[in-house]
């Protein structure tokens, strides 16, 4: 059985909350970092905290770069006309939010740079539908800015330049190298989403999806220890908030894996800025969608 499709108003509420109200786990991580910091790092972190509070109270964008909406619709069981309807309502909500100052018009023509001003373009927003193995219908949105997107990267192992072979140690080296190369440019302290395996395309996609995972829900299994070890190691680099020195450099690392071709071994890193804006619409039994 298929769920209802969120209304335009419900999509608008999702985008408003995503843009203006950081998830509680991210705010808590900033708060914990602030308690341990002084000097320039402390000043920067206190501005981040003050900014988050102000944005939530005023329902205004946490960051002026509201990204390109990345939307994952899971378990809705929509047929092709349902999907068309979903996309039309979402596009309408994006237009409303773009004209009301919830989103910045970020969709420009790739070659000419012309900005039509409504936040809609070829391939924007990105919407992915998945129906297998889902208990409840959900719609997740990620608003990820261009600065953080630009520092994402992909390694093909073995990579002799960083001494990375096709093993756990090689994976570790890639992720530390990615954090080092990013310095403060992705708006540190960042959250690293990592995909081990996959191909060129699925690696980037799956790495980005790791950013939907909460900071207080670490991996289990092979990557559990690596995730916490990497946070400590990257935070010892001294890059710090906004790359101005000190700690932390990352708030978390989330690693997932996909099967790979025998000849390929990709490690892909998606950099999420400290202002990680992810929110979810959850279908309630009475057909109403609620932002969580």
């Amino acid at each position, binding site marked *: 059985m298929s769920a209802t499709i969120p209304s335009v108003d419900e999509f608008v509420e999702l985008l408003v909350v995503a843009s203006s109200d950081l998830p509680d786990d991210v705010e808590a991580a900033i708060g914990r970092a602030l308690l341990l910091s002084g000097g320039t790092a402390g000043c920067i972190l206190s501005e981040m905290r003050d900014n988050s509070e102000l944005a939530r109270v005023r329902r205004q964008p946490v960051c002026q770069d509201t990204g390109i909406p990345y939307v994952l619709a899971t378990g809705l069981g929509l047929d092709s006309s349902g999907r068309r309807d979903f996309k039309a309502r979402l596009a309408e909500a994006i237009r409303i939010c773009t004209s009301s100052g*919830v989103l910045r018009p970020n969709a420009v023509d790739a070659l000419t740079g012309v900005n039509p001003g409504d936040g809609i373009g070829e391939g924007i927003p990105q919407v992915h539908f998945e129906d297998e193995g889902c208990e409840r219908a959900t719609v997740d949105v990620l608003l990820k800015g261009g600065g953080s997107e630009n520092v994402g990267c992909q390694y093909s192992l073995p990579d002799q330049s960083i001494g990375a072979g096709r093993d756990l140690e090689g994976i570790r080296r890639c992720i530390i190298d990615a954090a080092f190369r990013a310095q403060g440019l992705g708006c540190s302290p960042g959250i690293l989403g990592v995909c081990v395996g996959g191909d060129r395309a699925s690696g980037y996609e799956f790495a980005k999806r790791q950013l939907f995972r909460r900071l207080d829900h670490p991996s289990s299994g092979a990557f559990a220890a690596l995730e916490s070890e990497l946070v400590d190691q990257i935070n010892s680099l001294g890059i710090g908030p906004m790359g101005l020195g000190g700690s932390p450099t990352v708030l978390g690392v989330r690693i997932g894996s996909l099967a790979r071709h025998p000849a390929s071994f990709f490690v892909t890193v998606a950099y999420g800025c400290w202002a990680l804006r992810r929110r979810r619409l959850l279908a309630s039994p009475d057909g109403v969608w609620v932002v969580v």
Partner: protein
Amino acid sequence: MNFEANQVRLQSPGDRDVIRSLRVGDRVLLSGFIVTGRDLVHRMLARDLPDSVRPLLRNAFIYHCGPVAVRDGAGWRIVSAGPTTSMREEPYQAGILKEYGLLGVIGKGGMGRATSIALAETGGVYLHATGGAGSLLASRIVGVPDLRYLAEFGVPEAMWVFQVSDFPATVTMDSTGSSLHESVLELSRERLAALVGP
């Protein structure tokens, strides 16, 4: 902890001798008028050398920012306006600093060698604003007295003139040629080598 301590109050347009006395690590609160410029503005300033904007830029700061702005009657309200990555303007910045007599640059992430040399030559400074703090920084924008190139470039890339009051930033590149970004890069490179081997 009092994070507002030891902050230097600056004006834009302002006095170059005050700017020359600033050093990496100083926290500043900037008031006055600043002008936004991103990729299209920088390319235009470098190629077209428009005289019409010179009075806006002389002895003032250019701000690497593409705001979220809402029409408010005849004017505009800025609801989110943090910095964008400055390094994209590196090919243009040194020439623009000199050509238009800027006091300096506000942005995030720092800039390269050519800009650093130009700041030393002109007695300018790079002010680092906190990326992602769009709402907080917009709350320090008290007016939008002028707006250029909106039709040509669109909202994020237009040239906005912001009147600011106590806009907070950190000096990360100064007129002695010192750059916090370079020193953090070098330190982290050493620590990286210690973690994973050279």
